[in-house]
């Protein structure tokens, strides 16, 4: 059950952190329709995060609710994949194309994952996944449409889309690398071994990139930071990118500055 709580944190943190990144776009999107769409996606992910964090806290049984987990953990206690935390714009680390590239990869992967989790032996995970499947299908479709528009729009938008994909691609390998927690839970039918999703997700991405007349990026994946056992460690182990600390600082500041407050 320690594993199950950790697994809920992993999936919950992915959603929480990407939701936070997407909400940075609020009032900054290229058009009003997109302000509405990105806020909608951020809201759906936030909803998934709240259910998963709440569930993680319940299993843990130490009295931590969704807010204790979101606002009072240190950076290294977050278990999200690095793809979700990278600044893909509107900050200096990206732009709208980079945001779309990340959303395309993330939602394609999480949709495939959620479709399989619907048959998880854990009923809560299965229920969360069932709800998420519809939301993620919309997200993937939204990202795919923009990928095609930008890839097959103007010469400039095509350049931006290629640069955006190059920027996020190094973070894709992590999505398909099983963490020991995932391996153990997959063996008992609770979790999904993400390695088994790769060919399906690759197929989806190839279809979208094909429709956008874009090539699959050739940039390699990032070398991971090595821990004391010599094994590579990533977001699932609490090892994040430098940008993540700033995201957490902003997200947690009010909650941490006003101890004992109720909201």
């Amino acid at each position, binding site marked *: 059950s320690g594993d199950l709580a950790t697994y809920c944190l992993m999936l919950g943190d992915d959603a*929480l952190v990407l939701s*936070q990144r997407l*909400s*940075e776009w*609020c*009032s*900054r*999107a*290229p*058009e*009003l*329709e*997109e*302000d*509405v769409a990105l*806020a*909608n996606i*951020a*809201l759906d992910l*936030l*909803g998934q*995060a*709240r259910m998963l*964090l709440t569930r993680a806290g319940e299993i843990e049984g130490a009295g931590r609710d*969704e*807010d204790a987990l*979101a*606002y009072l953990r240190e950076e290294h206690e977050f278990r999200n994949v690095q793809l979700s935390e990278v600044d893909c714009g*509107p900050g200096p680390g990206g*732009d*709208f*194309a980079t945001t779309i590239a990340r959303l395309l990869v993330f939602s394609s992967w999480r949709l495939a994952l959620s479709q399989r989790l619907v048959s998880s032996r854990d009923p809560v995970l299965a229920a969360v996944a069932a709800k998420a499947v519809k939301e993620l299908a919309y997200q993937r479709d939204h990202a795919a449409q923009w990928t*095609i*528009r*930008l890839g*097959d*729009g*103007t010469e*400039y*938008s095509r350049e*931006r889309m290629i640069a955006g994909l190059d920027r996020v691609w190094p973070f894709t390998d992590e999505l398909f690398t099983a963490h020991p927690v995932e391996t153990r839970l997959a063996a008992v039918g609770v979790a999904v071994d993400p390695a088994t999703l790769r060919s399906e997700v690759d197929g989806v991405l190839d279809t979208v990139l094909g429709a956008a007349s874009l090539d699959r990026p050739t940039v390699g994946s990032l070398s991971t930071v090595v821990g004391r056992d010599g094994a590579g460690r990533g977001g699932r182990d609490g090892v994040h990118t430098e940008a993540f600390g700033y995201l957490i600082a*902003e*997200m947690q*500041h*009010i*909650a941490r500055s*006003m101890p*004992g*407050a*109720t*909201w």
Partner: protein
Amino acid sequence: MDEELQREFDRVVAAEQRIEPRDWMPEGYRRTLIRQIAQHAHSEIIGMQPEGNWITRAPSLRRKAILLAKVQDEAGHGLYLYAATETLGADREDLTQKLINGRQKYSSIFNYPTLSFADVGVIGWLVDGAAICNQVPLCRTSYGPYARAMIRVCKEESFHQRQGYELLMTMMRGTEAQRRQVQDAVDRWWWPSLMMFGPPDDASSNTEQSMAWRIKRHTNDELRQKFVDMSVPQADKLGVTLPDPELRWNAERGHHDFGTPDWDEFWRVVKGDGPCNAQRVAHRRKSHDDGAWVREAATAHAAKRAAKESAA
């Protein structure tokens, strides 16, 4: 011919019926409506900024979700209000240019900063509250698409207002620091909220014609009084003090007496020197400019696709 059309228009308006986009209407009516609805749309869009300022820092996930949904609603309101102007022949890109070039206004209230999370609650309670006072009568306005947009907007706004008030209630039951934040926010937003109804009737232009056209239905001072009367008991229940020493119940009038807003400040802020005017417009301009290549790409792609389809 024109005279006949004018008579029919006058009859419809006087009978409290609706003018629809294809109906004949006087040019002044069309122009005034476009300006009024555009200003309202601009206010929704600019209004996303002061509240959006707190989304990434909202101190609970529930409040983050509520706030994100609210700001999303504001974008939605902006969208259908711009759509209403388009039924009058206006062009959204043109109106946006007018906004970012400072040739059209938005509600001056959004030129004040949001300085703590309590501001989110106070904007919901007072600013949305004042907006509702202004807008409810417009649900019966003479122009159909505008009236219908206002019905939807008002429904969502009163939902937002209740959420804002509920946040303040929760904060007032919290720590001393939270209560201080609420009172401080009330102190800062009360007078600007009163100014949202516009200058006093004796200094307000255009009211008469707008009244006749049924695109304005109460005077500024009437609405302001209504808002004060509505807010005082809410403030009591909340446990905050409204920052007006002249505020008291006048049994004779059946209304609250209250002090005079600082109209000099009002005009300074309207004219551009408010704490955030430059910031709000620069933010909007930057977002619009940064997004230009995306909108161009979407247009180019749609054209390519259309060309392919017509070739097939």
